[in-house]
């Protein structure tokens, strides 16, 4: 096949670094924060899953933080609160 040289259409990405996610030793007495993406039924689902984590793994606290609306990111205030207080963060994605 005859070829020509072109420049890559996508190019490089910003280096955001990366954090290795490690397994959690235990959730007993842990604090779980949920970022509700605002889509229908997610808050209900999150509350149910939170209760199951309390029962099955001794989670002490489950807090749910709802975004302003589904089409925007979580506010800095939510992110600050979650990062300061949670051992495990669950984020809702999609519909």
């Amino acid at each position, binding site marked *: *096949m*005859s*070829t*020509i*040289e*072109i*420049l*890559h*259409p*996508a*190019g*490089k*990405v*910003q*280096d*955001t*670094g*990366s*954090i*290795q*996610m*490690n*397994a*959690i030793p235990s*959730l007993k007495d842990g604090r779980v924060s949920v970022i509700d993406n*605002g*889509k*229908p*039924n*997610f808050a*209900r*689902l999150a509350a*149910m*899953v939170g209760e*199951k*984590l309390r029962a*099955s*793994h001794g989670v002490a606290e489950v807090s749910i933080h709802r975004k*302003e*609306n*589904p*089409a*925007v*990111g979580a506010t800095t205030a939510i992110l600050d609160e979650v990062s300061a207080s949670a051992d*495990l963060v*669950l984020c809702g*994605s*999609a*519909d």
Partner: protein
Amino acid sequence: MFEAQAKHASRTLGLPGARMALFPHPLGGKSESQVAELANLVHANLVHALTSVAASPVKPTAVHSARLAAPSDPAELQRWCFEQGWSDGFPVIPPTPDAVTRMVEGSGLPSDRLVGVVPPRLGLATVEQLAVNAVMAGCQPAHMPVIIAAVQAMLEPRFNLGSLQATTHPVAPLLIVHGPIAQRLGISSGAGLFGPGAMANAVIGRAIRLILLNIGGATPGAVDRSTHGAPSKFSFCIAENIAASPWGSFIEDRGLRPDQDAVTVFGCEPPHNINDHEHGDAAGILRVAADVLRTLGMNTWYLGWKGRKELMLILGPEHAASIAASGWSRADVRRFLYEAISRRRDELAIGGMYGMRDWGADLEALAAPDALVPAVPTPDDILVLVAGGEGKHSVGLPSFGATVSVTRPIG
């Protein structure tokens, strides 16, 4: 179904090993008992994800080779680019080093100047990288200043590009070019301006789409989750028809001179037609326009960007002339539409995104079922400009909701 999008997000945000608990789509519309069943599944999957062996060490993000060997045959190049995920399916002009150099020269800027970082892939939009996509789209070097200004405008936080790129909504950024540059570049503001019919509109709009696809990573079906897509996602670029506007240029309301070259980006649905062959008066025409711009299914009723949201009306020259002949200013048009584009609260409650609304206290206070709720916060949030050719048509453009238009000078 949305797994690829979630993985893409976690990877680009620096958490490539984020654990996922997947469950069948959709969650919306399920009964309480059905949600409870899903909660069992999510709980089990979550525990498994958290307690299973850690993923293998994170690989650094691949850095693309700057130069590639591509098929020289045009048909083969078209097929190959599409298979790589780099095109919209139409033929592409090969971005050879020489072609890209010429395109960069059209910008008047250094090739390595960083214009911005395009979400959600967080691709580096250098002048050269933008030029690569402009070449592929069929642009001329003289188009580069418009493309660069449009990218800068789209990267303003209030435009909310990251959400526009990934949503199920059929939104695309509309580019509106203002000032003498539009005529100089042959960007149509007249008949058929949304296409087909004007090469500059077609290729500049297409360059923006390829930039969003390639640099921004909005791969349809994976990251771009638009339920139906939209023809406006191929190309969506027009010019303002100042010569036919009774009220001067749209950008004067934004503090710019009418002869200033500028571009406005607006995240919206494809045009909704407003056909009115009956009325010759302002109120008559605008009542029809308001009816088109108050559809129950539009995001604008429910979502905003930090309390802001907009609608756009592009008046055809004949409608604009009739409205002006009634003695109405652009501000009069906005005020009329603001009143007319409203719905009873109990109508808004029957569908759309009522359960997800982000209304402030002022709207929530309109609690009575028959209380009229405006679609946008103020009359100034209805963007009114003139474009198009002969005919008794105008178009309405509902926005994505959680986005605010941005106007930026070119150059």
